């Protein structure tokens, strides 16, 4: 059973928040860094407190560290060497393998995210903008008294208007699926993946092999921790809307093309496998039905949901298929940044997109596999394409839509997403935070 009082809430529960801010932190001195961890450890939301929280609770904080950050805080070299190689190297060093090349390459990444001086991230959730302001002001004031710590960059994340459901800038409804962890008392919705072993996401517990994998040392530092892969993707909303117009004559056709890219209807999330020709709002918002489908029996050739669509690449729903899912799951957290671009307004060139953290126990096996193979490997299912959204597309975008008698290929002149940031973090448990603060 997960030690909920020692796990940071971040991967387990979503607070009642509409707004978040990421502050990317550098420690000028080790002592300053440790004081900062010590000062914030008290207000870090544990899974236990956040799950018990009411809507009147205002804000929650999470802390995570880069490899350089752990080293700067004073974790010794012997312990550091026990951390897995992807984390030690950092995401930018693994760009070639991940597929982050061309325009997506780390030289172009924003927010000083590839800096050797990036040591930590503090993730703040607040109930509203006012509360966010108050917290950030307090953090800034604290930093005035602690010159050993500085903010490298910040990113504000807000729910995008105007739609009445959670969505990103392209207008796709979000948060329709998330892994469920065994023993948490949550039943997966019909058709969803069976509960995962805690060890798939938290260190120190048995994973799907039935064993507890070897963990970084010392145990007090790794127990109840997780790895986070941060990913910032700019969304070129103008290019996306032009793409839809170029590939669909009517509004209905454009919506169908948008749905084919994702595998779900944009505004409701209703799955194409269950309603391939026309959106069904009631179905999309019915949790008992909106994940209750498979591909192998219901849509083996992808006539409803293309094999190369985002949800079909990222989430295998079949039992007999040639892809294994239970060791590839991630817990996705994050949201949208940048201003909403109203419909029928030309792209203003503003920076907007999504900034997400993928939580897992093994960066190589889970996050890196999803990006390098299922999203970016042109050999995936012999499609010679990349994932429409999670792929690092450099230049023309293509998607094959199976159709009788002959498949159709939709094309765009330009990619409508660009990877603009990425980093690996370690999200420690509460005791581990205290341990880091107490290092000499």
């Amino acid at each position, binding site marked *: 059973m997960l030690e909920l009082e020692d796990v940071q809430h971040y991967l387990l529960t979503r607070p009642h928040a509409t707004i978040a801010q990421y502050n990317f932190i550098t420690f000028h001195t080790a002592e300053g860094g440790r004081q900062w961890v010590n000062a914030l450890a008290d207000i870090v939301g544990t899974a236990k407190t956040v799950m018990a929280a009411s809507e009147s609770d205002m804000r929650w904080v999470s802390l995570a560290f880069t490899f350089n950050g752990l080293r700067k805080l004073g974790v010794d070299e012997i312990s550091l060497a026990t951390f897995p190689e992807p984390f030690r190297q950092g995401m930018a060093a693994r760009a070639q*393998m991940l597929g982050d090349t061309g325009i997506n390459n780390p030289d172009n990444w924003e927010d000083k995210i590839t800096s050797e001086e990036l040591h930590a991230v503090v993730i703040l959730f607040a109930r509203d903008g006012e509360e966010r302001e108050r917290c950030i002001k307090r953090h800034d004031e604290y930093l005035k008294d602690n010159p050993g710590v500085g903010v490298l960059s910040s990113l504000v994340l807000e729910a995008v208007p105007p739609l009445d459901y959670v969505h990103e800038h392209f207008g796709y409804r979000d948060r329709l699926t998330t892994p469920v962890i065994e023993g948490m008392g949550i039943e997966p919705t019909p058709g969803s993946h069976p509960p995962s072993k805690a060890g798939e996401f938290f260190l120190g517990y048995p994973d799907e092999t039935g064993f507890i994998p*070897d963990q970084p040392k010392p145990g007090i530092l790794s127990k109840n921790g997780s790895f986070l892969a941060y990913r910032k993707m700019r969304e070129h909303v103008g290019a996306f809307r032009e793409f839809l117009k170029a590939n669909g004559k009517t509004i209905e056709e454009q919506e169908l093309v948008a749905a084919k890219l994702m595998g779900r209807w944009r505004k409701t999330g209703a799955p194409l496998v269950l309603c391939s020709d026309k959106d069904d709002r009631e179905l999309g918002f019915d949790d008992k039905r909106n994940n209750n489908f498979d591909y192998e029996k219901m849509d083996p050739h992808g006539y409803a949901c293309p094999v190369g669509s985002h949800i079909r690449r990222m989430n295998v729903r079949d039992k007999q298929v040639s892809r*294994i899912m239970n060791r590839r799951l991630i817990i996705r957290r994050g949201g949208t940044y940048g201003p909403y671009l109203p419909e029928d307004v030309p792209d203003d060139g503003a920076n907007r997109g999504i900034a997400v953290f993928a939580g897992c126990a093994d960066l190589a096996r889970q996050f*890196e596999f999803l990006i390098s*193979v299922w999203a970016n490997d042109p*050999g995936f299912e012999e499609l*010679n394409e990349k994932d429409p959204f999670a792929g690092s597309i450099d230049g023309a975008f293509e998607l094959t839509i199976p159709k009788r008698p002959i498949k159709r290929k939709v094309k765009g002149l330009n990619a409508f997403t660009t990877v603009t940031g990425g980093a690996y973090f370690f999200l420690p448990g509460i005791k581990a935070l205290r341990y880091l603060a107490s290092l000499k």
Partner: protein
Amino acid sequence: MSNTLTNGWTKPAAVAIPKEGYFKKEEGRYGPIFPQTPANYGFTIIAKVKPGREDAIREYGKTIEEAVKGSPNVLAPLKLHYLRWVLFDVGSGLHFMYQGIFDTDFDKYLEDAIALFNSTGVTTVFTNLEGWPDDWKTNIGAVTKYFREHQRPSFLEYGEYPYVSSEEIKKALTLKTAFSEMLDQMQ
């Protein structure tokens, strides 16, 4: 598929491979990636057998035969063409060779391979080999390292129908069957 389209499957091809096993160093998740050749991707694992374990290894052949009979698609995630298991002794003790030809670089599906080898009993044969990590069940890193250290890259590979994937072959044969059936129906 791109390689089939670019290079054409109708023209047999051979490629000589540098000693390190690749032309240009390209990092995968677990080390350099061995390139696709006209004989597709593959590995050749060679390791010395622990003394007195020959019978155990030979018996294991039967285990795998049964496992595949029981669920024929069990190894599908690995995009395989062929696997070969060989025992040989050239005077320096008994050695074991495990050779596979498949359609994706081994790095990509390595964890699936290890998981499937564990669940089908393939891994148990490795416990009869020298240098196999004792903690293989919990230490995927050590298993990965073992596979990489015992991999012997080819210096030459040949394909009669270069770069063709097993998926393409299966589709072509399915199509052939469908056509014969259609012709039957036309009689």
